[in-house]
């Protein structure tokens, strides 16, 4: 499997996700945002961080960079695209994913390990997880408060396009287990084709027991076959 990580000025989880991909045996390449061509690959990752300092709106400026036109092209032709954290924000700014990410409801940056539930394990990104599996995973963001219009929200729920929801240790999805105010506790969504996944939590931080746990491993291994 070949993967490509897009690097924007201000990306800072680009190395982290590259390390994870390589550890999972992807053949990975980094591509600078000023490039106009993408190498042929099976997976494109838009990494986390603070592209352009999150100035204006997080993801807005990266959403206008040269390489993004290419990302949109290949995404529309079915290539797998994974946006993590700032990557998720960028994907919503490009329109590849609908909705947007507002400021956390407590107006503070939040970094901690939280729990999410796998709602849909019938996708190329999640099939190695069990349905309703609870993962412990790290979040680190200022704007993770997912918002969209009622129509889209209904579609997400009905078409099973919600990948993950925030929950508690036991799997309960409620206001207490919602760290940032996200609509319906949404932590990650697919596009209608399910070849694009945007998620706020950081799976690349969960691949090593010494550092955290290995709850992110299956996301990468799902993508391998």
């Amino acid at each position, binding site marked *: 499997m070949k993967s490509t990580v897009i690097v924007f000025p*201000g990306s800072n989880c680009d190395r982290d996700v590259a390390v994870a991909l390589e550890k999972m045996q992807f053949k990975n390449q980094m591509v600078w945002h*000023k490039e106009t061509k993408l190498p042929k690959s099976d997976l494109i990752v838009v990494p986390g961080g*603070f592209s352009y300092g999150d100035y204006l709106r997080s993801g807005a400026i990266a959403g206008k960079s040269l390489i993004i036109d290419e990302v949109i092209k290949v995404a529309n032709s079915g290539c797998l695209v994974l946006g993590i954290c700032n990557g998720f924000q960028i994907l919503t700014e490009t329109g590849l994913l609908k909705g947007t990410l507002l400021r956390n409801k407590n107006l503070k940056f939040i970094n901690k390990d939280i729990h999410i539930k796998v709602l849909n394990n019938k996708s190329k990104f999640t099939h190695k997880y069990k349905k309703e599996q609870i993962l412990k995973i790290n979040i680190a963001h*200022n704007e993770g408060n997912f918002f969209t219009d009622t129509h889209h929200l209904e579609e997400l729920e009905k078409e099973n396009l919600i990948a993950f929801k925030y929950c508690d240790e036991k799997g309960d999805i409620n206001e207490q287990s919602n760290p940032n105010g996200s609509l319906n506790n949404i932590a990650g969504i697919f596009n209608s084709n399910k070849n694009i996944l945007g998620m706020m939590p950081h799976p690349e931080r969960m691949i090593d027991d*010494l*550092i955290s746990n290995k709850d992110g491993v299956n996301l990468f291994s799902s993508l391998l076959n």
Partner: protein
Amino acid sequence: MKITSQIIEKHGLKLEEFANIKKLLNREPNLLELGIFSAMWNEHCSYKSSRIHLKNLPTKGKQVIQGPGENAGVIDIGDNDAIVFKIESHNHPSYIEPYQGAATGVGGILRDVFTMGARPIALLNSIHFGSPEHFKTKSLLNGVVSGIGGYGNCIGIPTVAGETKFNETYNENILVNAMAVGHAKKSKIFYSKAKGLNKSVVYVGSKTGRDGIHGASMASAEFDENSEEKKPTVQVGDPFTEKLLMEACLELMKDNSIISIQDMGAAGLTSSSVEMASKGELGIELELDKVPCREENMTPYEMMLSESQERMLIILEDGKEKDARKIFEKWDLDFVIIGKTTNSNNLTLKYNNKIEGEIPIEALASKAPIYDRKWIKKKKPKKSEINLKDLKKVKIEEALIKILSSPNHSNKSWLTNQYDQSVMCDTVLKSGSDAAIIRIHNKDKAIAVSVDSSANYCKSHPITGGKQIVCENWRNLITVGAKPLAITNCLNFGNPENQEIMGEFAECLLGIKEACEFLNYPVVSGNVSFYNGTNKKNIFPTPVIGGVGLIKKLSNPLNHIFKRENSLLILIGKTFGHLEQSCFLKENFSISEGMPPEINLLNEKNNGESLLKLIDENLILSSHDVSNGGLITALSEMSISSNYGAKILKPKKLTNLFKYFFGEDQARYIIEINSNNLPKVEKVLKESDVYYENIGFTQKKYFEIEGELKISTKDLFKINNEWYNNF
């Protein structure tokens, strides 16, 4: 323009100093030159009041690659790996504008570290606020914390450890000290010393604006009613640009184009160019019209004194300009050759081809004033007036709850959850324990880092206080299994022109020196911040120690959290029951007189090294040092974040329960061990002649002292986590 005494005073210079300047120049300086002298000769850059004391600190050791004198200290951790680190204060700016002040503090210290060729891998901070009830405290705390997070999170370097304290002594003068730690190849460290004639001096990074003009002088003057007027000099941090600057510099450092590199920190272009030239014993000529400016009509004076952030000065090898420029252009940063090195030994400033200022480098550097300020010894403090009968008026349980729920002891996750602690994916142990552990990327070794201070101890007896902070810092590294290697220090004090304050400074340094020498724990970098206080009210002396230790093999990282049921608890070190200066007396009786606990360096070293031996032999499940709040507080902390509590047996040779449980005697640790390992553990401790006691064992759910108290660990957690909920 005629230089009047008013102008001189405005520049923070004394008339004698001005006379001295005239002598060095053989003439009157013009305004530009005066500004440059004021920047270089102020406390912040010249260390004029502290230098003769700093000289005495131990700075050498097998582990030291670069001691004080460069942008940051460098130590050797084997296998061609080096650790680069330093701490710096940003107290005054943070009081005026907490968010930007703290943010630019973080930005500044990061530049000191990546200037030397290191990729920053961890950030720490030591922040001190006034009383929690003071009307400014809440907003200052909020601002500082979001500023620290705002900068570190954006640039993508984990903020992993620190300390947060409240004390009314900081009501009008908070402390914000930031420490950065980086990793470099030992064979690729970059220094600021210029070499060679006619080499290009290159300006890279952000454009120069009118920010913080005279910031360095502000950091060196006491606050007064007029300090509000100094507000417009606050700088705004731009972590995004700093990220670009960092990546660009690290990219350029991959080959051999750089002769010398220096960040523009306090006193910006002035101090960076003078420092490079002075270390290289060269002159430097700058063409100021070439300086990239953000605002129109900036004068040479403004350009030389601006403290705009995110800028660097580089001296390049011949012929490397083109490739270097390409790198900076790729990162959308300015890259302009603004001058060259010369053999004139002068700082020569040209503007539109006219010489606007010319000063001998040595007048600014080696000939800057040095003061041997008068100081007086601290008298031994009064004994505290508490008798054993009064102690009995409180219950152990109440006293414990008071400590655990106090602002100073409350759980800090409210803060630390606002910092990205995990980015870079090498944080093995986050904040909350005695020290943080950061893995060296791609290797199975790690460093441990911690910052510590004890203003109350230092106030009551500076020498002991100085020793204590070094020892506490050393202990904090040991409890997570690291061999302490070296420290950086940030010395936050009041007005040095006051003999008592200068005495506190001198004596704290004596204490630091003695402890560092004994523990082979040299000082490799640091920073001094004087004039902390308002209108003659000086802050408590607050030296802060930042330590780095090495974990050679990262198989089984340790922390302070109880691991299982029925393991044995051993207290290493002797308990005398020293209550003076303790949290117990402060929180329960509002008594703050008396001596801090005595430091016995011999025991300190022996106990610490013996514990490291036990850790190396894999005999320890968890460990924690005993410090503020005494044994009982340390034990509760081990229970709070765990599923297990403890049952502590009543000590046999007990004189007084309060003294035993709340005393703050030093050089003590609590360890949790598997009971099967007791013989092995005892053997090591006995062989090294370490005093120890078996104090109890871990159990499920409850924290208990036989016959005295029993609290569920859940309740302890709640008690400890309530205070910050108001924020």
